C-alpha cells in the first residue's frame, strides 16, 4: 500500500527529463554565483578563528585561575569588557581602527586578504572570552577534594594538574566548547560588515539581484543548518560520552 502511494507520488516529476530547460529555470538564480566558494570562506573563517580563540582563550583562562592577582584582574577585565561589546563593533574596529589607524595590515598585500585576516582577528578576540569562560567553568567542575586528595598522596603541582585536574576539566569542557564553536560558525557572518566574501555577503548580493527571495534564503539557511547541526550532534555526543559521571 505504502509502496503504491510512493510510486504514484513519484510519477509526475519526469518534467526535468522531458524538458531539460525546466531545471535551468528552477535553479537559474544560482547561475553566476559561487555559493560553495562563499561557504568555503565561512568554513575557513570558522576553523582559523576556532584555533586562534582556543589558544588565546586557554591563555586567558590560565590567567583567570592563576595565583597572580594582576593576571586574574586582566583576565576578568578582558572577558567582561569583550563579552559586553557587540561583535559588530569589534569587527568594524578591526578594519577602521586597527588597520586604518594602527596600520595593522596583517601582512596582506590586497584588501581582500587583509579583510579576511582582520575578521579572523576580531572573531578570535571576541570568541576567546567565551572559550575562557567555558574552560574556567570546566576547571570549576572538578571538586576541590580531587586536588586535595592528590596533594595528600604526595603529588606535586604539575602532577596534580596533569594527572588529576586537567583530564577531568577537559572532559567537562567539551559540551560548552561545542556551543562556542556553533556560535562562532554563525558569528562569522558578521565579517560581512567589513565586506569579507563569505556566505552572508553573497546572500545579500543575491537576494537583492535575483527574484527568488525565498529560494535564496532557503539555500543559505540550509547551508548553515548543514554546518552547525552535525557539529552540535557530534560534539554533544562526544561530550556526553566523555563526561565524568559524578
Amino acid at each position, binding site marked *: 500500500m505504502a509502496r503504491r502511494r510512493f510510486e504514484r507520488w513519484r510519477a509526475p516529476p519526469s518534467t526535468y527529463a522531458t524538458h531539460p530547460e525546466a531545471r535551468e529555470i528552477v535553479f537559474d538564480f544560482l547561475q553566476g554565483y559561487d555559493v560553495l566558494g562563499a561557504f568555503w570562506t565561512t568554513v575557513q573563517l570558522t576553523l582559523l578563528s576556532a584555533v586562534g580563540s582556543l589558544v588565546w582563550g586557554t591563555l586567558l583562562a590560565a590567567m583567570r585561575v592563576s595565583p597572580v592577582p594582576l593576571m586574574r584582574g586582566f583576565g576578568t577585565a578582558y572577558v567582561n569588557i569583550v563579552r559586553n*561589546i*557587540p561583535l559588530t563593533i569589534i569587527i568594524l574596529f578591526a578594519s577602521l581602527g586597527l588597520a586604518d589607524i594602527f596600520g595593522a595590515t596583517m601582512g596582506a598585500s590586497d584588501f581582500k586578504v587583509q579583510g579576511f585576516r582582520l575578521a579572523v582577528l576580531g572573531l578570535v578576540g571576541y570568541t576567546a572570552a567565551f572559550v575562557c569562560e567555558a574552560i574556567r567553568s570546566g576547571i570549576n567542575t572538578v571538586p576541590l577534594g580531587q586536588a586535595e586528595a592528590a596533594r595528600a598522596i604526595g603529588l606535586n603541582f604539575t602532577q596534580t594538574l596533569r594527572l588529576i585536574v586537567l583530564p577531568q576539566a577537559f572532559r567537562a569542557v567539551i559540551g560548552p566548547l561545542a556551543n562556542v564553536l556553533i556560535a562562532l560558525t554563525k558569528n*562569522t557572518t558578521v565579517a560581512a560588515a567589513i565586506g569579507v566574501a563569505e556566505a552572508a555577503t553573497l546572500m545579500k548580493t543575491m537576494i537583492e539581484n535575483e527574484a527568488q527571495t525565498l529560494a535564496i534564503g532557503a539555500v543559505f539557511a540550509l547551508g548553515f543548518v548543514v554546518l552547525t547541526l552535525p557539529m552540535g550532534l557530534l560534539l554533544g555526543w562526544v561530550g556526553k560520552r566523555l563526561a565524568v559521571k559524578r
Partner: protein
Amino acid sequence: MSSVLYDTPGPRAKRRNVLVSVVFFVLLAALAWWIWQVLDDKNQLRWALWQPFTTSQAWTTYLLPGLTNTLKAAALAMIIALPLGAVFGIARLSDHRWVRSVAGVVVEFFRAIPVLLLMLFANEFFSRYTQVTSDDRPFYAVVTGLVLYNASVLAEVVRAGILALPKGQTEAAYAIGLRKGQTMTSILLPQAVTAMLPAIVSQLVVIVKDTALGGVMLGFAELLSERGTLAANYANVIASFVVVAAIYIVLNFALTSFASWLEGRLRRSKRGTGAVLGAEDMEELNPAAVGGGFGAGSAA
C-alpha cells in the same frame, strides 16, 4: 587563597608571584605605551576630537537617538519573542507527537541560522511583498530577525524552565482535578516565568548586541551606525569607537548585574520551588548568550 589548582602560596611561591606580576605589568605597560604613541602619532588624542562628547550636541543629535533606536528594537523584539517563545516551548512539551516534532523542527531550524541571515531575508521580504516604507524597513527587518531567532532561544528557555520545576507541582495539580491546560497556565507557567526571569534579562544583552548588526548591514539608525555618522562629522574614529563601546559596556553590564541580582534573590527566596534558570544555564541553551561570572574573580 587556595583553589583546586594551587595551594596557599608559601614564601618561595610568593616571591615568584611577585616576579611574574612585575613582568606582566611591564608587558601591559609597554602595550599601553605603544597604543598611546600610535594614537598620538595619528593625531587621535587631540582634545578637539574628544571635546564633542562633552557638548550636548553630539549626544542629542547622534548618540541618544541611536541609543533610543537600539533600545526600542531590543525591547520590541523581546516583547514579541517572549509569547512566541512560550508557545513554542510549551508545544515542544506537548503530549501529541506531531505538535512536539513540528515545534522542535521549527525551533532547531531558527536556532541554527545566523541572525544576520534572518535580518537580510526579512529586509528583502518586506521590500518585495509589503508596503513598509524604505525608512521603516530596516527597523522592521531588525526586529523580525531578532524575534525569529530569540523566540526559538526563549522556547528552549521556557521548556527548560518548566522542566526545572519539581514533578510534584504537576502531580499536585492533577490530584486536585486540574486539566492539562489549566495545569500549564495556572501552575507551571507562572512559576517557570519567575524562574526564567534572570535568563530572560541575560538574553536581552544578546539582543542589544545583535541590533548593531542591523545598523551596519541594513542601515538601521541605531547606536553603532550613528557612530559612523558622528565620526564622519567630527573625524574622530578612535574617540567615537571608545565612547560608543563604553555605552554598550555600561548598558550590558547593568543588564547582566540586574540578572545576577534577580538570580540571587530568587535563589534565596523562601517562597516558590527554588527552581531558577540563571545566566549559566543560558549559555547551554544559547551559545551566544552572555552573562554570569561577574565578580567571580577566580576559581574558588
